[in-house]
């Protein structure tokens, strides 16, 4: 649902991620967050910020 709302608002799909990480998977948590942060940096400023 959030994905559809974000699309209506004209925000790129790549800016939203949903991952399941258990509390026992510290390494995986770090990996997921690092790669997502990297992706957002590559995408640059969000249309929300640019518009404001």
């Amino acid at each position, binding site marked *: 649902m959030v994905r559809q709302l974000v699309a*209506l*608002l*004209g925000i790129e799909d790549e800016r939203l991620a949903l991952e399941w990480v258990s509390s026992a998977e510290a390494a995986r948590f770090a990996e997921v967050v690092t790669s997502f942060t990297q992706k957002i940096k590559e995408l640059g400023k969000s249309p*929300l910020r640019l518009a*404001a």
Partner: protein
Amino acid sequence: MNIEGLVNETKAYYCLDCGVCTGSCPVARYSPSFSPRLMVEKALMGKAEDFLRDQDVWSCLTCARCTHRCPANIDYLEFARGIREEALKLDNKGIPAHSGMFQSIMGIQTSGIKQDRIAWAKEAGSIADKGEYFYFVGCLPYFNVIFANFPSQPLDIGRNVIKILNKLGIEPVVSNDEKCCGHDMLWNGELETFKKLAAANIEVIKEAGSKKVIFHCPEGYFIFKNYYTKYFGDLGFDVIHFYDFLAEKLKAGELTLEKSNGRVTYQDPCRLGRLAGIYESPRDIINGVATSFVEMERSGENSVCCGTTGWMNCSTCSKEIQGNRLKESMATGADTLITACPKCNIHFSCAASFIEGIDIKIKDLTEMVVTAMNGG
């Protein structure tokens, strides 16, 4: 505006202490702690702090039953809006329904982002980028996602409006740049957010070169007609309600409808009825699409609100109001309750989904018209 200014503007000082407001209030009936009269009295006595930190500030449905009946003509609606602005300053934010999702969506639209919201309209019929008629769709594309599990799709209303307008030879402008009309933000006490949204919408309509703006949503219609003009003066275009427009066309014989069998009843939306004074047009249309139309015990200016407004404080009180209203509609012997506001439809559909003993179809009037247009 401070409370003293508010008392002066709404002429609350004329209060006769008669209690007609509280007696008419659907919230006070189920939630006795809520009293419009008490709030006015406390404001007059300079004791507004007593209620400004209270949740009750957010309980008012702004349905205008009290304002309509008040013998002293106090503008309770503006009073309710004003005290919310004051309550926000004290950090009393109320409890938004759906965890504030709607408020977020409305707020984001002030930022000037590029929405992608009209794909459905292109599929429903012919629309234009520029032209005389602008169809102001409102929140329907968002509602359609959020209420996807409901029996009727909110966007069907938009699709139906386009189909009917096309049948009348009109290709309306439907714009990706249309924003939330700001109605709910205004009644959430967020005047500045409302103004930003309103200014953007006026610009979008001007750019489309439209002179006639058609609304199906009673909230959009009411807010453009009264508050856009209040804060922005002459808009340079006409604000028209779809049902007024359609009723005229039916009278002129520009559209023929086939009646379908069955008994129907009708819920007057507060914004369309008491606040905009449009009672006849929807009824004229209903009489053109249904063989039997019966009024509920409380209808027209005595109609009862669908139970929650501005996506705030949806509570057990809201559900009591909705359940009782649905039972009232069933008591007419009707098989279908016709709604004219997307929110009435959503609120009643929600209540009907879990309150026991509710057995009545809930349909938007445009759905009936499209069926009747295609031969009943």
